[in-house]
């Protein structure tokens, strides 16, 4: 009982001190929010695909209704040409990204899509945009091309990407905050004062994990609330699920970051490692590309990454799509508590090195 009381007092003292210190660094807080907003807006919008791509249409006879359909899709800004050579010239000079050359013979009924061909990403965007337009308008256009989905969803690519980015931000914010909070104590040698207090080490682990989880989660929620109306992505209808999934994800990554900090020790090596790891995780954890669409070895790699499970949970919360919530929660908690246990062991053995 006395041990629990001592531990509680120490945890309370460290949490109070950390929150006080946090309020004394408003710029750091604002910078964290700004970074989260930028990732959500810039990365989310960029990866979600272009809008208003300048698209040339040569259809002097007005045979097709492509101009209206493409404009309505929002992905293309149609520029109509009467002179095919002028249209090709504009394509060559990148004034338009593609040109639809509609055959003027009513019997031929064909459209040639012409691109510069020197940028596969642009070509893919055009193909995807066109496919989207054509599949949605297939019946109206009397095209033998149809698409259907098992689930009727009300979100777009941007929503899908943003949900993944939210999980990624859980990793970024947790690791960043933990690094600055924990390694800062090491660097300033104040950590020694804490661990020398009765129950100091355990109190430090509990308190730091708690404060960093709350700090990073607050920044994330604030960024999501600020960005959602501007960028136009959905936060979903199940707010408690979203809060719970992000909180759990941030907690897991905080515990993992603590383990990294125990081994990496200096802020320079720590920052470099979590940054490099973050970039790798972004691509192999199903944040942007669903793992089913990734190479087989990456699918296997993703399955051992905690970010994959955080991503699955967050997408389920924000998009309402089916996810294996039970499995995700167990795996994330498993990662968290194993990390905490290992961190405790490492720290208990190497206190003097701080």
């Amino acid at each position: 009982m006395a041990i629990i009381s001592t531990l509680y007092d120490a945890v309370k003292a460290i949490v109070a001190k950390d929150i006080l210190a946090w309020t004394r660094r408003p710029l750091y807080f604002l910078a964290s929010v700004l970074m989260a907003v930028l990732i959500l807006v810039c990365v989310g919008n960029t990866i979600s695909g272009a809008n208003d791509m300048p698209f040339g249409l040569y259809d002097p006879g007005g045979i097709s209704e492509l101009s209206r359909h493409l404009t309505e899709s929002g992905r293309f800004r149609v520029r109509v040409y009467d002179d095919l050579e002028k249209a090709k010239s504009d394509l060559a000079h990148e004034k338009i990204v593609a040109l639809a050359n509609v055959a003027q013979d009513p019997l031929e009924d064909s459209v040639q899509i012409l691109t510069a061909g020197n940028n596969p990403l642009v070509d893919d965007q055009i193909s995807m945009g066109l496919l989207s337009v054509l599949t949605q308008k297939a019946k109206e256009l009397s095209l033998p091309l149809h698409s259907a989905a098992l689930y009727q969803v009300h979100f777009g690519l941007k929503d899908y990407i943003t949900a993944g980015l939210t999980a990624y931000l859980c990793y970024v914010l947790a690791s960043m905050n933990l690094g600055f909070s924990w390694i800062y104590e090491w660097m300033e040698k104040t950590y020694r004062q804490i661990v020398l207090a009765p129950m100091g080490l355990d109190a430090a682990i509990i308190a730091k994990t708690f404060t960093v989880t709350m700090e990073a989660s607050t920044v994330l929620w604030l960024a999501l609330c600020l960005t959602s109306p501007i960028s136009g992505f959905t936060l979903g209808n199940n707010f408690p699920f979203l809060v719970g999934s992000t909180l759990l994800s941030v907690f897991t990554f905080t515990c993992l970051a603590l383990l990294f900090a125990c081994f990496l020790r200096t802020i320079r090596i720590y920052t470099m490692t979590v940054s490099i790891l973050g970039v790798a995780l972004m691509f192999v954890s199903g944040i942007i590309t669903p793992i089913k669409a990734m190479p087989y070895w990456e699918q296997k790699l993703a399955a051992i990454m905690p970010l994959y499970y955080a991503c699955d949970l967050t997408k389920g919360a924000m998009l309402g799509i089916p996810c294996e919530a039970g499995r995700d929660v167990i795996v994330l908690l498993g990662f968290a508590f194993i990390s905490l246990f290992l961190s405790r062991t490492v720290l208990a053995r190497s206190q003097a090195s701080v």
Partner: protein
Amino acid sequence: MQTSAQPGALPSLRTENLTKMFGSRVSVDKLNLCIYPGELYALLGDNGAGKTTTIGMLTTLLAPTSGRFFICGHDGIKDGRRIRGLFGVVSQDLSVYNELTVYENLRFLAELYGLKGDTIDKRIEQVIAGSSLVSRLNDRAGNLSGGMQRRLSIACAMINEPKVLFMDEPTVGLDPAARREIWSSLKDLKKLGVTILLTTHYLEEAEILADRIGIIRGGKLIVEGSVAELSERIQGMRGLSIKLKDTVSADGAEIARKLEKIKERFDILIRHDCLRNTIYLSQPEHVSVNEFLRFVFDWLESEDIPFTKFASGEPNLEDVFLAVARSGPEVENQSLESSLEKVQGGHH
């Protein structure tokens, strides 16, 4: 409350063959210390001598390879968790939270050690009483001078009323005024009966503050005693140094010839320092200082030797340190050189 060292009492700190090895390198070698309540013990040594490793082991941050230590009778190895509330640590790094105020720093430590309610403010008043921190209580620690930050570190270490205080080079990097303020704080702590183990390589600091001094070299405690006891050991280290004018050379034939007259009279060691153009004469045994001084003055006058500075002094701690920590013929030279430096600084 005890106010002075009591060798008859239970030692506040005791080590038995305390040893720390890093791989095959011995950092601390069978260290035996016994420090009594209210005593300030200064552990002197060069960089890498093992001082900080010793503090690391005694503060339970570093596991000893072998040996034992006791703090207030508690076994530091078997009962490491219990002894943690018994001591405070002031490291050479400024371990304060810069963004918190002086009061908030102290309050945090007080709460960390389980102090509650009014006790916290009372304790804070006690640990900063009489220091310049009283008027800076609401200033952020980051805005304090280095000396005041160090004073705050000491106050933080004292917040839980430790019986033993470990101070690892607490005045390193401070200006003379700040060092004196820290010394004053340490003297106040001694009056309160706190047992202090101070590591330092500032010999003057140990000389002024310590009740006893231990000199550590290569992890071994090579000598231990009070300042007076250690001075006794190097009686033969007394000497004179004479800095000659540039018109004559300390190792020239003329001076050498004139020095023969001293050699004929006394069995002493004579050395030359060409760089400083200085002659060093060791104090002859069985001859009083006054008699030797008088002779040398007469000699300088009769031989018409032009000189700019003349120094004589009791061996100070630096002499002791050099004599004990470094054996070899250069010891005398360096100790006398240091005397000369002090003369130039106006101390003698």
